[in-house]
């Protein structure tokens, strides 16, 4: 394993230190427990938006901390969910009194750790709601699995929800918006190569010289199928059509009911895409993909969306939610309304995403 690290044990910490040194005007980093937070936190009167998850997906989430996006990000070890004390301490630090929204990707570890953190924070009198992101259409059957994984929509949700928090949405309204973003977003990815978790030191999975994995997860979880290499246009078509033609998807998630004061099961359904829908499109590199290749994918996606009657009103092309040095691509389509577009266009100033400022 050849990586630009000093040791697997110090990797996450040193990377966070580097980020804090590079962007002292934007973010600060707290160690033990580890979290990245806005340099100007807590922002008076504003609901704090916190996300987190295993490291190895950079720039997500730490790179999205700053004005108009996250108030704090809690990084676990590489591909390992963070622990509740991280989220608890982050919540204490960035909560202005207006409450905290946890944006949680749907992995059993993340879900459980964020739930524990929410319980601990509430025990201290901090208002907390958790919203799950579960947008990966590669996972077909929610009955027999943990449900869909949280992937690309997380980035778009952090931007849109972060902007709304900046505008002063209250906790309840923010949670409703986050849930709405989630059920309107769908993603699917693929891998040309594996990645190597530093602590393990060998590739997470093996792909043959000419093999690719369609429907890969962001931790290298296996996808729908392993097939021989195909041209970019065909790969783009496989991903885009899986997303666009995905039928209504229904599952039960656990949310905290503030009135009842307990966790309740909520049934959510993703409405399928329809011709005429406006979408934000993200063509996301998995970390090791040259951006020039991502534009080849975007090109084809543009034509497919056009043919399907979807109007791409905004786009992101680049590495936003990655799997270490994995080569591959993920496509995310998020159906948006006027409110979401306006929030998307709002200023954002973070290490990895910046506009309007």
């Amino acid at each position, binding site marked *: 394993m050849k990586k630009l690290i000093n040791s697997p044990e110090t990797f996450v910490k040193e990377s966070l230190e580097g980020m804090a040194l590079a962007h002292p005007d934007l973010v600060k980093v707290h160690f033990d427990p580890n979290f990245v937070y806005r340099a100007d936190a807590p922002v008076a009167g504003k609901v704090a938006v916190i996300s987190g998850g295993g490291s190895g997906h950079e720039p997500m989430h730490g790179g999205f901390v700053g004005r108009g996006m996250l108030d704090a990000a809690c990084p676990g070890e590489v591909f390992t969910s963070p622990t509740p004390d991280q989220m608890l301490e982050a919540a204490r630090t960035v909560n202005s009194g207006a409450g905290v929204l946890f944006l949680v990707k749907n992995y059993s*570890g993340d879900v459980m750790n964020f739930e*524990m953190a929410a319980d601990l924070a509430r025990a201290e009198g901090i208002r907390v709601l958790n919203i799950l992101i579960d947008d990966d259409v590669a996972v077909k059957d929610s009955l027999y*699995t943990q449900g869909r994984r949280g992937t690309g929509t997380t980035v778009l949700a952090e931007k849109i929800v972060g902007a709304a928090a900046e505008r002063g949405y209250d906790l309840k309204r923010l949670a409703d918006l986050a849930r709405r973003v989630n059920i309107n977003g769908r993603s699917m990815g693929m891998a040309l190569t594996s990645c190597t978790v530093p*602590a393990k030191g060998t590739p997470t999975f093996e792909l043959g010289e000419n093999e690719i994995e369609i429907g890969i997860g962001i931790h290298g979880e296996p996808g729908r199928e392993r097939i021989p290499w195909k041209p970019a246009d065909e790969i783009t078509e496989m991903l885009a059509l899986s997303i666009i033609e995905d039928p209504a998807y229904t599952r039960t998630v656990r949310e905290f009911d503030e009135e009842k004061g307990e966790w309740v099961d909520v049934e959510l359904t993703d409405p399928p895409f329809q011709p005429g829908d406006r979408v934000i499109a993200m063509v996301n590199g998995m970390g090791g993909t040259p951006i020039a290749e991502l534009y080849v994918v975007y090109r084809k996606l543009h034509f497919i969306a056009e043919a399907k009657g979807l109007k791409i009103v905004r786009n992101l092309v680049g590495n936003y939610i990655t799997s270490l040095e994995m080569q591959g691509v993920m496509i995310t389509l998020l159906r948006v309304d006027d409110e979401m577009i306006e929030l998307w266009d709002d200023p954002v100033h973070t290490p990895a995403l910046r506009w309007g400022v």
Partner: protein
Amino acid sequence: MQTLTRDHIVRWITHAAEVLEANKEYLTQLDAAIGDADHGINMDRGFKKVLSQLPSVQDKDIGTILKTVGMALISSVGGAGGPLYGTLFMRAGMAVGSKYELTPDDLVAMWRAAVEGVIQRGRAQLGDKTMVDALLPAVDAMQKALEQGGDIVAILQAGVAAAEKGRDATIPLVARKGRASYLGERSAGHLDPGATSSHLLLKTLLDVVTE
């Protein structure tokens, strides 16, 4: 043997840390096959943290010790294993309270509470190919051994045997919880890493008691 002492518990935890370190590679390999290749690494990191905190509580009551173990795991393991094993030890600690010695009844009640905590936290059912497949049969077997008048050793022997059987029974199963569930049919044919570490934990307790 009719009592499990505080000293047993301390030695159990200490020895468990060694066992998990020795099995770090193995558990990680199991997780590589159907998960994300970190279970051994996570558990080892967690029990290293536990070891660092043990000295400060090892002359306290068993409940305090177990809750400290749980908190240390919760705040250092992460992933799915962290909340689950953290909850297991927290609930175990809460169940025994400020005791310094456990009767066979206490022991079984402790494990029952611990495993119920795991199920509540992770909402896995028997057959979902998780640690529950080792833990739940183990508790049921311990209960049965207790009802049949078994002592601490007999109870733990029954538990370990059932855990081992439950662990091995995960091999043909298709996972329905955790990362392995994304594999669908492809998860069959592999041992579940969490069930394996659960069996190791129970077995270590038996070893400490019988050594």
